[in-house]
């Protein structure tokens, strides 16, 4: 009796069948029993997983506090930090972030000279951004940061362009979080 579907070839993990010849009736019964046993073992594995703690989250929760919180240092949406004493943006408009950005998604329009220099316009196209964080690392004034906010989906790519007001507001919103880091 030939049973090609059983592929009775050698296998180190399961020593039941090693030869390529066709199995005898006794070996065949052994294969069937072993196959049935492997199925029972598989059923047991799924059974214990049935009772395991469920890992999925019911995102988004009605209470935002229950949603998943990223770890410190998470690279999320952008923010410009406002200096507490002066109430002005820390950004000095040096355009280093703009120059290092591999995607070219940052546009800084500075205004003024010397110590007075500050950004008149500050755009980040989050739709192009790949969140590599080079702009934050290069920032000499520690002005540009990334918040833990990961919920940035919108229905229009235009809404993904962050302007200076948006970035300032984000900086205010995440002031405490960013300062702790």
């Amino acid at each position, binding site marked *: *009796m*030939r*049973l*090609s*579907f059983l592929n009775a070839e050698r296998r180190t993990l399961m020593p039941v069948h090693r030869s390529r010849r066709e199995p005898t009736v006794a070996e065949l019964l052994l294969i*069937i029993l072993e196959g049935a046993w492997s*199925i029972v073992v*598989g*059923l047991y*594995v*799924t*059974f214990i*997983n*049935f009772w*395991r*703690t*469920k*890992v*999925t989250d*019911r995102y988004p929760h009605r209470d935002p506090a229950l949603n998943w919180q990223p770890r410190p240092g998470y690279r999320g949406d952008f923010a410009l930090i406002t200096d507490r004493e002066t109430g002005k943006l820390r950004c000095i408009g040096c355009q280093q972030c703009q120059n290092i950005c591999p995607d070219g998604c940052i546009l800084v329009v500075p205004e003024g000279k010397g110590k007075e220099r500050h950004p008149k316009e500050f755009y980040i196209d989050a739709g192009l951004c790949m969140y590599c964080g080079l702009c934050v690392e290069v920032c000499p004034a520690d002005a540009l940061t990334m918040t833990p906010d990961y919920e940035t989906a919108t229905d229009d790519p235009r809404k993904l362009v962050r302007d200076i007001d948006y970035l300032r507001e984000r900086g205010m919103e995440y002031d405490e979080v960013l300062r702790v880091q």
Partner: protein
Amino acid sequence: MSLLSQISNWLRLTAEGLCQRWGIPLLFVDLLAWMVAVAVIIGLVLLIVLIFVYLERKVSGYIQTRLGPMRVGPIGIFQTAMDALKLLIKEDIVPRGADKILHTLGPILFFVAAMLGYVVIPWDDKAIIAKYVDLNIGILYVTAVGSVGIIGIIMGGWGSNNKWSLLGAIRSAAQMISYEVPMLLAIICVVMQAESMSLGRIVTGQQGAYLSGWYCWRPWLWLPLILFFIAATAEVNRVPFDIPEAESELVAGYHTEYSGMKFALFFLAEYANVFVVGLIGATLFFGGWLSPLGHPDPLHIPGFFWLMAKAFAIVIFLMWIRWTLPRLRVDQLMALAWKLLLPAGFLAIFIVAVVLLYI
């Protein structure tokens, strides 16, 4: 049950009276009664199918350490109903170049064939829809109409004008024809034991103290039991025998090109078939509507409930299997049917015959 039969008797008498008064032949009353019963059963089956789909999603979710549907209604119980609704209002697409008639007829035929099986199920003592027709061949009838559905699948697969669909339909045909044989061999064993092809007689033959009379306790019927469930799983295209719609190979098999209502028909009919397998399995081996508490049931729980409970248990076991096992390849599937299950079926018949003759 008595209340139900009283109501039905009263309805019938009223209808007969009305017919006599208006001069309508009495045959019409019978037709009407059957139609009402069919409508009730179809409604019931559709409801149960919805429950099954929900259960499947929950069971699969729990097995995969997910929560499953949770949004619509408490713990998501209305999710399937909403999905069914969504399917009904979706656009019905017929692909370009498709055979429109076959494309439409396929799911209808498949659905009708799936529903026909319910006609002969003994829901309770003497509660069979087709009680006025000769039921000596009930189990034969079930397997016969079960094979009709394949024509619907082939129609759908061919009519879709899609190569994946065609492959799925061909696979399905080959699979159903192959597994019909071992399934019938397994059923023949039970028929030999019960000495009848009537499903009602098969159930009443299993009466005994508590659940001792069920055929699943007779060791010579264990082999047919296993054969029946393997073959029946293959017959309804479930994992590990779901090659006709193997989504990683054939996209979605024969219903690749279906959408909306027609897809819903395929989907519902598949689960209706699974339910038939549960019902027939319970009837053949687990005492059908017989109560495990004794005869008659000391708590007066209707037999309908027991049959449902048994069928649900079987279906949930099939779900458990489905979310555990990989699927077989088409040649392995054929080899399993013809090289292993078929000889095993003959062996089972031989064993049962020997046992019944000499023991």
